[in-house]
């Protein structure tokens, strides 16, 4: 079971944001899309989550994304946007409950309310149920939204079908401790048989947690494959337009990316 995006092109006005980019993600793996600002990584994710018009074909577990019902899609994939606002003073508990909108058919649990508390516990927000979402800090808000996303696809595999997490910069608002927590939650989801597709800025976290990396630049795919093959000095330096060097410090096997800019403190 896979998510397959084939020859995706997206235009904003006259600007070609994506030019025939193809992408595949397998269930049971963590796939990450990286690239500089404006490379089209969020655009690619938003095409896959049905948020913008695109040319090409996208399928999820064999279902064509364009012609599958909103509710049916909601039962196999959940989406964490880059940032989200909520109108009206919802409590954290009420926010997370919204993840259950797709209903009973989207989980095997009888006790939906219990899921809400499990999810809040998982993202480290137990005890915040009664707080208004507006009162939370940016990072807490992002984690509350993640809890909402998690209850939507609580079981990574349901009725033999893998389910998917689409995460758009899930850790950009978080401190390093919570960055690791969130990446681990996503990693566990993938290891339990679900699929994770994430857009990331942090290349080191990407290298640590991803099975597969797709590097975009200027709306085109530069490279796709295992982190070691994609995150190379040459690929990164040309795509990001600055000198970057990778390293593999023990015991960590993956590439470790260090900026080699011309000037920093002490030089």
């Amino acid at each position, binding site marked *: 079971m896979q998510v397959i995006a084939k020859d995706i092109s997206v235009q904003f006005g006259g600007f070609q944001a994506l030019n025939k980019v193809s992408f595949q993600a397998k269930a049971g793996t963590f796939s990450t899309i990286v690239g500089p600002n404006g490379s089209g990584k969020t655009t690619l994710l938003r095409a896959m989550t049905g*948020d913008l018009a695109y040319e090409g074909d996208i399928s999820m577990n064999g279902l064509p994304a364009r012609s599958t019902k909103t509710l049916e899609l909601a039962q196999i994939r959940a989406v964490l946007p880059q940032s*989200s606002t*909520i*109108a*009206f*003073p919802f*409590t954290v508990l*009420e926010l997370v409950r919204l993840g259950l*909108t797709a209903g009973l058919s989207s989980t095997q649990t009888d006790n939906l309310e219990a899921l809400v508390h499990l999810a809040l516990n998982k993202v480290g927000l137990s005890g915040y149920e009664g*707080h208004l979402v507006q009162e939370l800090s940016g990072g807490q808000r992002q984690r509350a939204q993640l809890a909402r996303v998690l209850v939507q696809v609580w079981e990574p595999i349901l009725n033999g079908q893998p389910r998917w997490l689409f995460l758009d910069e899930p850790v950009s608002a978080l401190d390093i401790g919570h960055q690791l927590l969130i990446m681990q939650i996503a990693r566990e989801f993938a290891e339990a048989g679900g699929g994770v597709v994430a857009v990331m800025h942090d290349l080191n976290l990407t290298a640590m947690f991803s099975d597969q990396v797709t590097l975009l630049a200027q709306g085109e795919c530069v490279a796709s494959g295992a982190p070691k093959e994609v995150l190379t000095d040459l690929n990164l330096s040309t795509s990001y337009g600055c000198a970057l060097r990778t390293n593999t410090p023990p015991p960590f096997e993956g590439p470790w990316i260090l900026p080699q800019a011309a000037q920093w403190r002490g030089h």
Partner: protein
Amino acid sequence: MNLATAYKATLSAPAGDRRAKAAFVRLGLIALLILSILLSLGWGAAGDTDVIGALLAGVGIGEASLRDMTIIWDIRMPRVATGVLVGASLAVAGAVMQGLFRNPLADPGLVGVSAGAGFGAVAAIVLGGLLPFFILDLVGSYLVTFAAFLGGWASTLLLYGVATRGGHTSVATMLLAGIALGALTGALTGFIVYLATDDQLRDLTFWGMGSIAGSTWPKFFAAAPIIAAALIAAPFLARSLDALALGESVASHIGIDTQKMKRIAIMTVAASVGASVSITGGIGFIGIVVPHLLRLVQGPEHKNLLPNCALLGAIVLLVADMIARVIVAPAELPIGIITAVLGGPFFLWILLRNRGVLDM
């Protein structure tokens, strides 16, 4: 469940869960509504009316004098029934609009229903006499009602058409187009008012400020099916409206067909507000203040918000009507003046108290 057990349930509810509170509020509002209905029925120029006796006699229990029966069942009851229906309709329509536009300040007035209905009514009052006789015969005394309803619907359909492109309705465009259409109908209305005679001007003034004093059973039954249908449809939008608080994109991610629900919500509001305005004229502030107040008390979940809005909207309208009847007795003030005088400062007070909470 009685009030005491409902109250106990609010104390043992899990943190952040305001459903028990909403259930408690609902029971309280039902009690208040019954009280306001009885007060409203008992309050009038004709003293010594045996309200309870006449009410019971009306359903076949005991007997009451013909005078009391007439006062209660033919004069006060249509007025109270209209008040309940229109109050509920305006408050629920307000809550649905606010959910749809994700803005606590949205009001049915924004989507052009009120402006369109107002234009229809003004045109009917001033120019109605110019219509051919057979049409006047056909619609009879419903001319203003009918024209208002038609005006409200037409303007909503027009706005919906303007804001919809390639199967997607832009809520922001609809809001802005509503302002433009409001200005246009305002100008047209002004022009027709300019043509009006002195007698017509008095009718227009009263119509614009709203009143349930002229309520009759035929008028009530003309609007009741439409408003009732909208009130029954509204709770089915609850989950979608909750989801929409997260924005259209997230709402569709969690399984809501946003285009379909926008269409249903807009049509529901247009029908119910159009029907309300057509029988009572413009009554402001109920659509903004009632949902807002309830959201502060019990949270924004629409499943509980919408029914409680209906109850509180009805109560507020009945209370405002009672004030309108006594404040310059034996004359009566238009009810729109009362709701605005009470609603305006009250709304400001809510805003000042909750500045932090309102920021989105």
